[in-house]
């Protein structure tokens, strides 16, 4: 059974009138040796990690980033990067933090998922490795931390038991065509569902308990690739982004398109559309103008368009789950932090 629409998400009381997105300041954080491909915040918002085509992963401590961004920061430069991991042989595709412990996982083109323990200052290598059969495009921990799900070139997500490394598949997946590689997989807050965004343009919702597909939104982004998908905290809606330059909000219970966030072109990269921490806003990227575009989540109105400050369009955007701050990763190899000006 799918656990749909039980909770209220906090904060959003007004309806109708478009809110304004607070001003942010931005700062260049760090530079990879190749394109910065992905970023992920830890669930407590204390850390953020970035993965790159140079096969490295950098781990940042948010408090250090903030310290670095202080206007009168002390002369001694603060280094927000607290760990760098070099263990993959191919570009990093996605990252996730363990919900409880100090473990970071990465999925990479080298068909592996690697586990890094960032509590140790010296460890640069993974302490566990899952060898998958496919390019691991997306990884997400189950909220229990005992499972993880991997989206790969395989059209069905791979569920791994973290303790035994046993891999499970849906027993009865729907018919998926040849172009079913999964661009992104994300769990809902309770683990009751997960969502996949595929190259065939479909968004599929899967039951977290049985792994059966409970809803396929085929053609969610018509024939263009669906590049990202994530749940609202109340598990009632899914936000998806596609190479058809649309960002869409779907109601899970009915599969209905509830909202569209238009006006940002993204046709090339694996573009992300994400919620702000309060879910009041939706953030994505306009590739042609190299801007970060922000919509009011409720009204769908565009509320801000900011130059990304990257050279060339940013590749990834990820918002902090706990505070008004986000991170952008660029094809220019750099990582930028954005935070609300207080």
């Amino acid at each position: 059974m799918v656990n749909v629409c039980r909770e209220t998400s906090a904060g959003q009381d007004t309806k109708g009138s478009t809110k304004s997105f607070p001003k942010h300041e931005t700062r260049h954080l760090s530079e990879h040796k190749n394109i910065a491909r992905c970023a992920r915040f830890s669930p407590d918002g204390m850390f953020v990690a970035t993965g790159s085509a140079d096969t490295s992963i950098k781990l940042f401590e948010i408090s250090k980033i903030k310290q670095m961004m202080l206007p009168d920061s002390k002369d001694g430069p603060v280094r927000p990067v607290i760990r760098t991991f070099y263990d993959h042989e191919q570009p990093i595709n996605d990252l996730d933090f363990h919900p409880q412990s100090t473990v970071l996982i990465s999925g990479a083109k080298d068909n592996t998922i690697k586990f890094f323990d960032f509590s140790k200052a010296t460890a640069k290598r993974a302490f566990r490795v899952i060898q998958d059969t496919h390019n691991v495009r997306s990884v997400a921990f189950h909220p229990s931390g005992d499972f993880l799900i991997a989206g790969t070139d395989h059209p069905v997500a791979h569920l791994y038991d973290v303790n035994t490394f046993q891999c499970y598949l849906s027993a009865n997946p729907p018919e998926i065509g040849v172009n079913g590689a999964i661009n992104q997989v994300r769990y809902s807050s309770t683990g009751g569902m997960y969502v996949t965004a595929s190259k065939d343009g479909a968004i599929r919702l899967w039951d977290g308990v049985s792994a059966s597909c409970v809803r396929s939104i085929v053609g969610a982004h018509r024939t263009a690739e669906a590049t990202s998908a994530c749940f609202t905290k109340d598990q009632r809606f899914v936000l998806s982004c596609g190479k058809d330059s649309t960002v869409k909000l779907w109601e899970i219970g009915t599969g209905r398109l509830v909202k569209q966030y238009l006006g940002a072109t993204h046709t090339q990269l694996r573009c992300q559309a994400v919620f702000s921490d309060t879910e009041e806003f939706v953030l994505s990227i306009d590739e042609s103008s190299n801007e970060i575009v922000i919509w009011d989540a409720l009204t769908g109105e565009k509320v801000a368009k900011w130059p990304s400050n990257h050279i060339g369009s940013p590749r990834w955007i990820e918002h902090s789950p706990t505070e008004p701050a986000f991170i952008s990763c660029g094809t220019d190899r750099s990582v930028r932090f954005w935070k609300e000006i207080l």
Partner: protein
Amino acid sequence: MKLETQASNRNPTSLSAVDKYNVESAEILANSALHLPITQSAPIYEQLLSIFPTAAKYWRQYVEAQMVVNNDDATKQIFSRCLLNCLHVPLWRCYIRFIRKANDKKGVEGQEETRKAFDFMLSYVGADIASGPVWMEYIAFLKSLPAANTQEESQRMTAVRKAYQKAIVTPTHHIEQLWRDYENFENSVSRQLAKGLLSEYQPKYTSARAVYRELKKYVDEIDWNMLAIPPTDSCKDQMQWVAWKRLLAFEKGNPQRIDSASNKRIIFSYEQCLMYLYHYPDIWYDYATWHAKGGSMDAAVKVFQRALKALPDSEMLKYAYAELEESRGAIPSAKKLYESILGDAAQTTALAHIQFIRFLRRNEGVEAARKYFLDARKSPSCTYHVYVAYALMAFCLDKDPKVAHNVFEAGMKHFMHEPLYILEYADFLSCLNDDRNIRALFERALSSLPQEESIEIWKRFTQFERTYGDLATMLKVEQRRKEALSGTSEEGDSALETSLQDLISRYSFKDLWPCSSKDLDHLSRQEWLTKNIGKKVEKSALSDGSAATDKSSSAAAGISAASLKVLRPDTSQMVIYDPKQHQGTAVPSNTTASNLSNPVASVVGAVSNPLLNPSVSMLDSGSANTFDEVLKATPPALIAFLTSLPAVEGPTPNVDIVLSICLQNDLPTGQAKKSTNLPSQRTTGPAPSTSDLSGSSKSHPIPRRQLGKRKDLDRQEEEESTTVQSQPLPRDAFRIRQMQKARGGSASQTGSVSYGSALSGDLSGSTC
């Protein structure tokens, strides 16, 4: 967390108080004072310093302004006001400049004065990490003293030596230079003596230098320009607080392993810290308790007195101070503090009354406490808490249930309408086992309290009956409760009939339940569902068209904790992903599944080709890098040959055979030995450490050597978005990839074949 304790210790600051501590306007004011004549700037400084009494930079600016106009008396006066509170090296150097100037022309007497001033200064700020130049100046000064005869000369030398020896064990920025100077000094005095002395002091200096390096890390975190403002939530303030806490913890660890001086260093650090965190009660408290723990009560008392001067409104600090005084027997002084907490009648809190009554009871006996209670009753700030506190004191401490009962009864006159008071009273009565009176009390309260305030009373009443009553009274009270509360939001209409939940609560005891937690979850979910049966329709209508939120208010918010329960995957409902198992055979149930897994299986099948087996066996031994060894073992000539191979579109020549011949011929090491009999090894399924999946996939030599390195990766970067050649490739995809790899950078066209898909199913054409 540390930060939270700090935040919660914060005094509520009114808006004007926040304005008062406006750092920007203070800086502007101080800057403007710089350009004014002293007569005009003095009041500005006085004003600034009344707000920031520990702002050494303003003191210094002020005193320098006075010094410029040679206002000696005023200068002295300012120094006497600030020096001891501001352990700030630049300010103190200002002072020494002033002293030296004043004593310059006074001959021997003046020199003696100056020396005293130096000693005075170094006893206060000599431990500062920035005190290096002061030590140097001091030593230079000592050296410059005239010596008329050899005796005086040797006295002077001793003084210089002493100064050096103190300086080189102090972790300062200039410690290395000081050591070099000291070496030179000793060597210039006497080569023979120098050796012994230097070797004695070398280890002390080395340890001080090591401590300096460590200390510097902490000191660098601290903003020495910060003005002391009350704690805010700003990140910067919190970081500063953390930085200071770290520094203090470091000093408390006595890093230099010195005995006597370590306390001095800690005191010094606290004093400096309080210059900046002047308004932080936690620092004051830590400092005072540190003193008290070390046995120096008087010092602790002094710290508290200063703390109360800094934070006159902090009740916490007053209680802390009173506690210290009381525990060391200084009752009058503690009493004075309590009285100051009570303040004037208008602002007294009930808590202050209660604590004072307890204090009196402890130190002056029952009668004094009673007297004060009688007075306090008349105070407008006397709440039911005071009655409860006094009654419980009489009951628990004086063992006098009668007095306690009377107090509670007296309180009933005033607090009949306070459900919490009723509950306290009932608790007290149940301690007496006086069930008749408890029932009477409940009935009395329920008859007078409005419905919405009686929920808790009802709850306690039913609990009481569960403990004291028989089955009939128990059920009766529960039924009465339902009827009484049926209209409130707390209990829905449906709750009127007895539910299973009531039974559960009747038959559970403490943390023992007559059912499993799963049952409980189930029941609460059902309850929630029944509550929302009516709402369902309306809710979906609400979400119509927009709104990523569910605003169905408090009921749903209450349930969110329950439904946030994590749902775990039930792997028994899934199939185990095991490419090996599927090899060559039909795959479970439906067609799509076989569709998905067959490509993998067939790749695995291809892998069993003997060609690749060497790497298989080596991978089984655990190291993923062994395949790289194979490539490394490949002679350079072969690599060169491979790299110069042209990139081929369309049907490829049978490179496998070429490569296999090459590999088998040229492997010089023992690795080639293992190439026999390997199919059987593979099927026995080695890989002990991990699951089937990883075990089986280990038979794919996935780790590959990056000949093209990053340049190559650059190119692959966007390959996932490029269109991929979807026609089936003719041969084992793995080996094709190996070849492409080996060809390295020269074969940029090969980017059209996705690496990631190499294993998955180029054979079936399902690339990307």
